[in-house]
């Protein structure tokens, strides 16, 4: 695929304590690379502490990376972005209750943005505000309301309108529906799908909810402790997972048609602390099939369209035969 957004070797370290001689460093992202094609949705899934929200903040320029680069159309952003650069990647946060200013009406918030970035001439600001409300399927009256007068789903629509106001090339959505009820989540997901189709938006969609990701995303990357462990087309990754972590994640998702007990694979133990020094594969302590090389070598993310970072990836039959998804060939060990 042609890369529109290109992320290369992104690393983020946070100093979290220790002394000046031996600082305690949390490595939130470790050499993360991926490409996103124009007009597609790229999903990032993983559990808490995997670095997915840090990644969202780096993409939108809120956190400066320790190393690596983010480039759009082949041009890399500097570590401090100019307003014109910031405009191009906009973010929708998880909780609209805290990401919107409670003292501002929607109109004031939007017109401030439109004026500052000179998106439209002054006399057209009001008209543009109304258009934005139409884009997010909100009545014009919502322009006179403050966040307190809106429901959770409506607030998230306003947050999306705010991101759209800057006419960004890429929308980064960090768990945009995690704070919403399912009946409201459906309407926000619908809205995002419409925007992608009608405005040709490109989106990076971050979530811990695999069912939502499967609906929304064309491509997906699975993260574990700051690294991408598997990526590819969503259907390919979810139906034929090669990394044991992806496999376990899929098995752990509650479903309306529960899997038979025999296919229910439980992960033992828990994710190690992100502060821990781990040699080799970080997933090793929970992995059902870790071998000798897992303790010494960090597996690289390899492959052509379906990439996996595992010394013993699971082989799947080449065809669309799903019977092979649950085969139990333990390689190596």
């Amino acid at each position, binding site marked *: 695929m042609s890369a529109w957004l290109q992320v290369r070797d992104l690393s983020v370290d946070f100093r979290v304590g220790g002394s000046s001689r031996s600082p305690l460093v949390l490595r939130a992202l470790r050499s993360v690379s991926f490409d996103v094609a124009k007009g597609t949705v790229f999903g990032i899934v993983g559990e808490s502490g995997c670095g997915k929200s840090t990644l969202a903040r780096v993409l939108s320029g809120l956190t400066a990376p320790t190393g690596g680069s983010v480039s759009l159309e082949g041009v890399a952003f500097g570590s401090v972005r100019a307003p014109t650069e910031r405009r191009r990647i906009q973010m929708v946060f998880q909780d609209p209750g805290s990401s919107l200013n409670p003292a501002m009406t929607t109109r004031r918030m939007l017109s401030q943005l439109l004026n500052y970035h000179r998106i439209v001439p002054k006399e057209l600001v009001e008209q543009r505000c109304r258009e934005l409300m139409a884009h997010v399927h909100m009545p014009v009256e919502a322009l006179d309301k403050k966040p307190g007068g809106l429901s959770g789903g409506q607030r998230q629509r306003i947050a999306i309108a705010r991101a759209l106001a800057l006419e960004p090339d890429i929308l980064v959505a960090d768990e945009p529906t995690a704070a919403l009820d399912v009946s409201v989540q459906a309407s926000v997901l619908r809205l995002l799908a419409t925007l992608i189709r009608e405005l040709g938006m490109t989106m990076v969609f971050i979530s811990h909810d695999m069912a939502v990701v499967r609906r929304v995303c064309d491509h997906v990357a699975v993260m574990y402790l700051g690294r991408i462990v598997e990526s590819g087309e969503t259907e390919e990754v979810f139906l034929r997972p090669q990394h044991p972590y992806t496999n376990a994640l899929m098995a752990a998702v*509650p479903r*309306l048609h529960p899997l038979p007990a025999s296919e229910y694979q439980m*992960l033992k133990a828990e994710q190690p602390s992100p502060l821990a020094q781990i040699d080799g594969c970080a997933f090793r302590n929970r992995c059902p099939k870790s071998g000798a090389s897992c303790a010494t070598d960090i597996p690289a993310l390899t492959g052509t369209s379906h990439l996996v970072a595992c010394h013993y990836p699971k082989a799947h039959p080449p065809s669309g035969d799903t019977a092979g998804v649950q085969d139990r060939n333990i390689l190596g060990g």
Partner: protein
Amino acid sequence: MTRILNIENLRVDLAARGKLVSPVGPVDLFLDSGECLGIVGESGSGKSLTLKAILDLLPDGLSRGTGTQQVVEGGILVERAPRDLRGRKISLISQEPGTALDPLMRVGDLIAEIVREHSGCSRAESQSRAVELLRRVGVPDPENRAKFWPHEMSGGLKQRVVISMALACESEILLCDEPTTALDVTIQAQIVDLLRELQRLEGLGILFVTHDLALVRQIANRICVMYAGLIVESGPSAEIFANPKHPYTRALLAALPDIEASTGDLMPIEGTPPGPAEFPPGCRFAPRCPLADGQCLSKRPMLEALGTGVRVACFKSEKGP
């Protein structure tokens, strides 16, 4: 299976500007031994308040209006006050395990204290019982972990400690209020597995409150769907998921993304649920219901048995598509 808990006419009251409103109820519930009853609903449906009202642990400003609960003692159901039940026959497991653990006590001491309170055994014996209980709930390396402070443990481990405290109380019924919402999906699977095992091996009865329909499908034998403070549909979980009768249950399922499906339109429910002060006089779902007519707006439907073990509160459920 024997009936171990029977709750009737439970109502939660809220005095607001001199006017009495009831965010929950009246609600009837029962639980058999070794059974898991799931209570599902969206935020504001009153599912958590129902659970807290059983033990009279309601937040300030809310009070138990009416309600009786019977528990089984020596084979017969007897009525007991909430204060005689909590920490004894019934234990509560909350969403945030951190708030249930005393941050100034090592987890082993926390459990040992409960053991002594309930059995009157010696200090040394209670300590070894605490380690046993930690092992029982799957805490790895329990001898060492008993010496941990709560803040040194992950969310999943803390939730296991809370469950072991309930076992130390020799409770027969666990009230679980979204016990896995704060946990990751792989850890959620571990906790759900533990609860199921306790249910099967120890015959524990579980009341499991959640907003997650797929999760309740996974764990509950029977479910109650709540909307605006009332139960709108209840029955065997397999039956309700295969054949939902109430328009609200159907709408919820149509809005839910399932991991098995990559396509198909998700249907949002138009409008918002009413707050306790503006509950409509008739069916509380009627203003958002596609099937509602004049009768629904003026008269409240009562739960009626359908024969399949399902009870539904809807005038239209038989005629619906």
